[in-house]
């Protein structure tokens, strides 16, 4: 197990190196002088010289890369050029919204996926199984922003039960906060459910064919107990692996959903940074999102070995 995790860790470090090189390159991809793209067309020569000095565009790439990795490790993602604020503090302001949205979406997803998949897998071919199957095929074809707009239309405009957009901070008004978060979280969760539901259902079906399930059943163990105590854990390895990728999707989805509901999260900050051509902020945010993703996947690998000890042996 230690060897397995060690190999994973080494790989994660190499991936981190590549990711940091990629984000560093983001600035070099801009057409023309990178200093001009950071400072803007109107900047005078002295400003441009200062920008070149600050970001060291005259230094070799390798030196800049080492510098950039060092600053990322120390949590310094640079300074926004438009607001003159460190990227980290801008990010810290917006992070709670996105984190809350993501957690809520994961909770809703699991609350939908686990019982539905267990039931559908247990009653294979029943009307609910077929309905759930069809529903995930339909849900998977609805882009998250369309889902968001449909939810706004139904719950906020037609039924008038929830706010159309905007954000109430948790500390100010917990109920209002939940009301403003529930629709965006639902938009994210439904898209995620469509992906994960068929996966868990297939694994449940496979698990239920195992001998020990037949044994438990012949001993007279109740269906609910078989499903939740005996079948869920061995069936959830794919689910857990995919949850790691989910995080990337949820972050990506959050960018869009936050825009649709005008929520002040990281996604909204990213879009704003791109619209105002604040490249340093864009670069910092992209790097931050990638690092979160890498760390989360490393954690999931550890979880994975706990869930299924065979993983570390076979690899």
């Amino acid at each position: 197990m230690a060897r397995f995790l060690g190999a994973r860790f080494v790989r994660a470090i190499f991936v981190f190196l590549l990711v940091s090189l990629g984000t560093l390159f983001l600035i070099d991809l801009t057409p023309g002088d990178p200093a001009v793209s950071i400072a803007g067309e109107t900047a005078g020569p002295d400003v441009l010289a200062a920008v070149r000095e600050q970001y060291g565009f005259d230094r070799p790439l390798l030196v800049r890369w080492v510098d950039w990795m060092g600053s990322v490790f120390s949590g310094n993602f640079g300074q926004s050029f438009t607001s003159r604020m460190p990227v980290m503090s801008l990010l810290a302001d917006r992070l709670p919204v996105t984190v809350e949205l993501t957690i809520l979406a994961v909770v809703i997803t699991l609350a939908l996926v686990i019982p539905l998949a267990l039931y559908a897998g247990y009653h294979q071919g029943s009307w609910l199984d077929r309905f759930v199957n069809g529903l995930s095929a339909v849900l998977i074809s609805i882009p998250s922003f369309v889902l968001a707009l449909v939810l706004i239309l139904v719950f906020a405009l037609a039924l008038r039960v929830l706010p159309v957009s905007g954000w109430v901070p948790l500390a100010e008004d917990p109920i209002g906060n939940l009301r403003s978060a529930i629709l965006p979280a639902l938009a994210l969760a439904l898209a995620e459910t469509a992906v994960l539901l068929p996966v868990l259902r297939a694994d449940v079906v496979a698990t239920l064919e195992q001998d020990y399930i037949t044994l438990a059943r012949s001993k007279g163990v109740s269906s609910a107990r078989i499903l939740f105590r005996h079948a869920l854990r061995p069936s959830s390895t794919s689910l857990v692996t995919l949850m790691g990728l989910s995080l990337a999707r949820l972050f990506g989805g959050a960018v869009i959903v936050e825009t649709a509901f005008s929520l002040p999260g990281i996604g909204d900050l990213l879009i704003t940074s791109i619209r105002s051509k604040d490249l340093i902020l864009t670069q910092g945010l992209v790097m931050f999102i990638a690092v979160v993703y890498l760390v989360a996947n490393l954690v999931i690998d550890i979880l994975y070995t706990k869930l299924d000890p065979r993983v570390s042996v076979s690899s």
Partner: protein
Amino acid sequence: MTEQQTLSPATPEVAPTVAVAASPAVRKPRRRPSIAVLLSLAWIVVVLLAAIFASLLPLADPNANVTPTSIPPFTSGAEFLGTDQLGRSVLSRLVFGAQVSLVVSVSAAALGMVIGVTLGMMSGVRRAADTVVGTATDALLAFPGIVLLLALGAAMGPGVRPLIIGLTLFSVPAFTRLARANTKLVNHREYVEAARLQGASTVRVLLREVLPSVIRPVLAYFVVILAALIVAEASVSYLGLGVVPPTPSWGGMIADGQAQLIDSPAHVLVPAFVLFVTVLSIGVLGRWLRARTSGSRS
């Protein structure tokens, strides 16, 4: 089976393509396509023909103001889908939007497939290539698809070129993993080893012996990826950072309509419905193709 989610073609679970062969549903010999498959095919053919022959069809100029103000759908014979807030023909913008969307996503998926299959087959037979390609793939997957697209758009400016590059990068990892898994599957079969023993070079073995078994699941997967790319393109264009207005795009039309969601939801719902039906149809076709290819593999 793992259906691909709309915004991330990342697929570590490529095994289903291979494993489905055992499920009883596909073991039946060549089932006739269902109604859903036929309807999907019909819709895709209509969209394709409309997009290809857009400039020959009797449509209004997508950027011309044909009516003084917006008219709702199903009120006028000529513009039966109505006109948008600038009085532009919704039907015409949908058709020309399909053109942009298809050009961008088909070319990106094709590029991604060629690059991905090449890399995947290389890493399927060479350990060193596997390590390098695997690490690079993991690095690409660390950026959520939409963030990757946005970042490229931010650096290179909006437009079709960064979109194609971004969508290609977005599709490469999935093709790479699929090609790698299928290469590993056949790499040590007798006929491949036989070719190798006869002294064929690695490139020749890969092209002549391995590629034919790799290409079938990959082609079926192409369709699934295409749906994901269309959604991704629509999403970035919805955010206003993809296709540059006034060039019509489905995502852009939905974003334009969102301002009057209360007064005239049709401006959002009509393009959203077209986008949804297109993605759904491609998904249905893709699943059907995948079931067929994996069913007849063994």
